[in-house]
């Protein structure tokens, strides 16, 4: 039985199975919807909301979502940052980054010099506003990541990120600060991640800042798609050329982030 014949048989079988999958999924979907209807009619769900609002003043933030995210279920957020870090480490373990794209044209270069600072400022704002209105660490981090992406597209192979050593510290910042705060609180007898009401606001802000930086760098590094060249790896001639071409001083995101209290 030559290969092609078995392949055709396999393909034909897959087609039938796909049909079967489609039909059964449709049936399952219908059943789920019907059961969903029953679940909704039970109507027990919203109880949790009242409790959340009732406890809000003790969390140190007025935006309920941020309260849930960083106070009620802070542990989830901690673990979620770890997930992001794990994904990035996975990407790094797969191999060095691709050498990057050809130099960008004048229009993109101009846009970069305008958009990137704007993104960073908005990120800062979103981080701050998260306390009392929709916003917060994730949104700010996403914007910073977008800034990195644009810089990368504009031709900087390292998407504006510092050397490997610094990058590693920045990546780790989020989870490290979070865990240290938790352990610190535990050491003071308050229990892991139980913020005393007085300091809750500042602690949350501190964690948020660290998280934003970590998320921003992680997303940018993920877009770079590989391990940054190690400190000992001499930048190849082609890197040199790319760097000079970009003249414009690569905006270093960290300083811009100093929040105006």
């Amino acid at each position, binding site marked *: 039985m030559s290969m092609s014949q078995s392949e055709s048989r396999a393909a034909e079988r897959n087609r039938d199975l796909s049909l079967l999958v489609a039909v059964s999924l449709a049936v399952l979907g219908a059943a789920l919807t019907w059961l969903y209807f029953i679940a909704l009619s039970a109507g027990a769900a919203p109880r949790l909301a009242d409790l959340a609002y009732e406890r809000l003043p003790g969390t140190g933030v007025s935006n309920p979502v941020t309260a849930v995210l960083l106070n009620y279920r802070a*542990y989830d957020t901690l673990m979620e940052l770890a997930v992001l870090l794990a994904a990035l480490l996975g990407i790094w373990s797969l191999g060095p980054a691709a050498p990057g794209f050809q130099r960008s044209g004048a229009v993109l270069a101009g846009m970069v010099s305008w958009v990137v600072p704007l993104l960073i400022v908005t990120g800062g704002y979103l981080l701050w506003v998260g306390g009392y209105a929709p916003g917060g660490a994730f949104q700010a981090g996403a914007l910073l990541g977008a800034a990195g992406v644009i810089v990368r597209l504009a031709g900087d192979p390292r998407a504006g990120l510092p050397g490997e050593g610094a990058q590693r510290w920045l990546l780790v910042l989020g989870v*490290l600060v979070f865990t240290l705060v938790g352990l610190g609180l535990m050491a003071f007898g*308050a229990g892991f991640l139980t913020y005393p009401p007085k300091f809750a606001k500042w602690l949350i802000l501190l964690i948020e800042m660290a998280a934003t930086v970590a998320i921003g760098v992680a997303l940018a590094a993920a877009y770079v798609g590989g391990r940054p060249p190690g400190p000992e790896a001499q930048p190849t001639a082609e890197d040199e050329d790319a760097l000079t071409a970009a003249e414009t001083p690569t905006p270093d995101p960290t300083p811009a982030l100093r929040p105006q209290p």
Partner: protein
Amino acid sequence: MTDPLVLCIALPLLGAMLVTALPRWAVTLGIVAALSTASAAVALTATVWQHGTLHLMLGGWDAELAIALRADGIATALVLMANLVGLGISVYATGYFHDRIRVRSFWPLWLLLWAALNGLFLAGDLFNLYVMLELLGIAAAALGALTGNRDAVAANLRYLLVGLLGSISYLLGVALLYTAYGTLDLGLLAQGVAASPELYGVNAAAMTLMVAGLALKAALFPLHFWLPPAHANAPAPVSAALSALVVKAAFYLILRLWLDLFWPITDMAVAMLPAMLGAVAVIWGSWRALRAERLKLLAAYSTVAQIGYLFLFLPLLAATPPGPARDDLLAALLLMALTHGFAKAGFFLAAGLVQTNAGHDRIDDLGGTAQRLPATTFAIALSGSALIGLPPSGSFIGKWLLMQGAIATGQWWWVIVVTAGTLLASAYIFRVLSRAFGLEPTPLKFVTDARAEVPALTLALVSVALLGLASGPLWTLLGLGDAGGGA
């Protein structure tokens, strides 16, 4: 009093961060983190041993809102096993990775995986379990692809996709439960499910989605397709962790959901489905292991088989009324899981050593290496006897109680499955061991590479001697009556 609960999770996380930040001291920091986490786990077991189940609401908020961490008998036993195996793997890994890049990538991911494991065993909140499952899946997939060759990447991509599919299906189950009951805490949900029989439809749907998702990750028979290539192509310490711990975590979740959350809506007939699949898994896994050419593929298929054994317990638990007999069954289930954990880890570590020493792991021409490394062959022999379930090992007692339960509840057919499985298992284990009796020159000393062989040997020994001869304490740890099944 509940500090060890948190430490078990925080310490490996902290270690992971430090290791990522300071790659040059990765190994030393890694070992320190491993040791501290293991001691935290031991402390946790000690506290649970004295005070019974530990319960902690993170953040001090009340039950519905906050995330709960819970450590009852089953969870603690598995945490202890996971951490001891983890310690063994860490010690082994210090000597295993020589390439600088690999070392930098291995330790952070390994510690993250370890944190995820502890987090998952101790979690008491459904959504938190989802996040832990994700962290576990991603770290495992990343670690699996460490070797970087084509098969490893393909296998681990498939593993990641399977993991994601499973998690998303699980998440939808959580969503349905949240829609119906409005809370995410396991304890409260259990009361909710028990209190509202009229919502059986929703419960059924949620259970189906969650258990099906987790079955994918626990590699129950037809859904095991991703496991052999993933575990066989991973580096030895990683495959040891994957086989012994990661797959077991998924099974633990299914068990937790089955026994605690959805117990009211399950009965014998329902339990029969996973058990039948488990039985087929036992036969198919052992049969494929017998036909495998490579040692690590053999070990991977043996994992598929051993997981099958664990699922056999479900119908027995469903059929036995609460009492000493049911305690024995539960303890036997735990014993099988623990013994497999230790034995499979020992087996993979030893297999790794054989592979590095021989340059390949094709079973048929392993003669020279098996002869040259007596300690490794001895570790393989001991862990092999634990996998088969030969007397001195814990799984012998597990199988004894399984068969006893099967006969007592009249489901005698499981005895045939277990016997066939044991025979096939002894066939493929002794197929490997018979290589050690060739005409090669006599090995001069027993232990050749202490740093690698000692962990493998100790893990195998624990599975055989400790669990085989002194498994009494397990009953007390699980809080089951000491008089379980008469003196």
